[in-house]
């Protein structure tokens, strides 16, 4: 029934599949990979049962999946796909084609560690390394956020000022396979939020003389790429507005960054994805001990909300950045370096302490996060403005 809020128990993957069902895209082309498989498995059930109007294309690889998505999207179709880890890596070449040809494809990523050693569990490196591919990039903490971001991503990607593909990530198994409480929306609500009729730019059509993907060399390439940067800048406001509209629609507050007990805080955790839940739990424990600490959760990773993060962290003494991603030989963890760039040269900003943790699904327990917090305070006390450590592994 329209307008009546239903609460359902769903895993993260199922939540994505059900949200896509309400969107009812024209084409879904996907290849199975753990921990994403359930998304397209459930969705192919919907297709087979005639519950959606989608053409489901079974492809032979992720490279083909994204290629099929690009082709479909160029005809003006609404397109969805999903992948993880090695699958996303195999798509990498076509990610740039999708954004370069301005295809508003939506991609669900079940964040999983890269091989080798082979591992199927949660880690966000796969999505973070796609940061330069000109895709709008979001992270979700829970099955609920996976559900919401699925619908939201179409809204952002298809906006005429953006027309860029969008990906959103949920951590493998931690979110994708955990059964959680999800508040659903009605079909009518989703149709009102992302109407079927929309502005479709130049599209691939047999009756029209147009060239897509033509050779563009030194004399025009940079102009075309600059268009993408401007679209990405536009995506910032579009995402903010879309989240505002979604909040009103769903009754759930949705913001590009989520601030938890930060108003009077001296210290802060910064995280994204499922880790943000643990960070908030640790804030509660530390607050009970009288510590003035809060947490900041990043939901929008690209375009990076530099100003919002600066404002949120302004006045904080030390920030503990919990980064569930691996990078080697870098000046800091992936998200830490972005935050450092956003804060550089500004007054009244915290010292930044990045912690690479949770790789391959490793759990960083709440007491361990408390220890990490104490480390950050100590670093700050001795005047270190930027540190990066690996935590939660055996030496």
């Amino acid at each position: 029934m329209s307008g009546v809020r239903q609460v359902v128990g769903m895993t993260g993957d199922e939540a994505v599949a059900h949200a896509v069902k309400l969107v009812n895209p024209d084409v879904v082309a996907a290849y199975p990979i753990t921990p994403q498989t359930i998304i397209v498995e459930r969705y192919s059930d919907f297709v087979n049962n005639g519950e959606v109007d989608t053409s489901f294309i079974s492809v032979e690889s992720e490279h083909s999946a994204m290629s099929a998505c690009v082709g479909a999207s160029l005809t003006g179709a609404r397109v969805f796909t999903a992948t993880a880890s090695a699958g996303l890596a195999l798509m990498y070449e076509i990610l740039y084609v999708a954004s370069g040809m301005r295809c508003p494809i939506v991609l669900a990523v079940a964040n999983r560690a890269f091989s080798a050693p082979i591992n199927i569990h949660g880690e966000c490196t796969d999505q973070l390394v796609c940061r330069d591919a000109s895709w709008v990039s979001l992270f979700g903490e829970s099955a609920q956020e996976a559900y919401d971001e699925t619908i939201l991503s179409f809204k952002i990607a298809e906006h005429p000022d953006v027309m860029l593909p969008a990906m959103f990530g949920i951590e493998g198994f931690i979110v994708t396979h955990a059964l959680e409480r999800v508040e659903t929306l009605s079909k009518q609500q989703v149709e009102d939020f992302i109407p079927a009729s929309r502005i479709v730019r130049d599209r691939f059509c047999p009756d029209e003389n147009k060239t897509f993907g033509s050779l563009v060399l030194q004399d025009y390439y940079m102009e075309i790429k600059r268009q993408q940067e401007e679209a990405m800048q536009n995506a910032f406001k579009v995402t903010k507005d879309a989240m505002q509209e979604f909040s009103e629609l769903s009754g759930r507050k949705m913001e590009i960054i989520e601030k938890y007990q930060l108003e009077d805080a001296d210290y802060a955790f910064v995280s994204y994805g499922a880790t943000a839940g643990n960070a908030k739990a640790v804030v509660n424990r530390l607050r009970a001990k009288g510590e003035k600490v809060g947490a900041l959760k990043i939901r929008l990773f690209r375009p990076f909300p530099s100003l919002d993060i600066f404002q949120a962290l302004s006045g904080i003494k030390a920030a503990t950045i919990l980064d569930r991603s691996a990078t080697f030989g870098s000046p800091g963890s992936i998200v830490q370096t972005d935050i450092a760039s956003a804060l550089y040269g500004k007054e009244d900003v915290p010292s930044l302490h990045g912690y690479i943790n949770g790789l391959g699904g490793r759990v960083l327990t709440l007491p361990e996060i408390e220890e990490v917090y104490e480390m950050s305070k100590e670093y700050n006390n001795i005047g270190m403005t930027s540190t990066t450590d690996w935590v939660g592994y055996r030496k």
Partner: protein
Amino acid sequence: MTKEAPDEFSRWTKEKWGSSQLPMGGTVPYHTAYAYKTGDWSAFKAIIDKEKCISCMNCYYYCPDSAIIMDDNLKAECDMAFCKGCGICSKHCPADAIEMRRVTR
């Protein structure tokens, strides 16, 4: 097959339009690939002996650029505006009817 590009199109190139004026994503909204005569840089050309052609159409299907056309008598012909001289047709021709000849400029 293809329509003439409007004057506006020649203005893009003459005036060197920038990012705010060019169509989104490098799309050319006036032509299909049929309008781009891409065979002008080849080092070899496929020369087909129609007397030898047995109309098997192997060359027609193998040509990566769709440069082979079948004439009214179902004999293979090569559209030189698109032939890039790769030689696949020649390799596959069972009747040995296609010779790759070096282009002299």
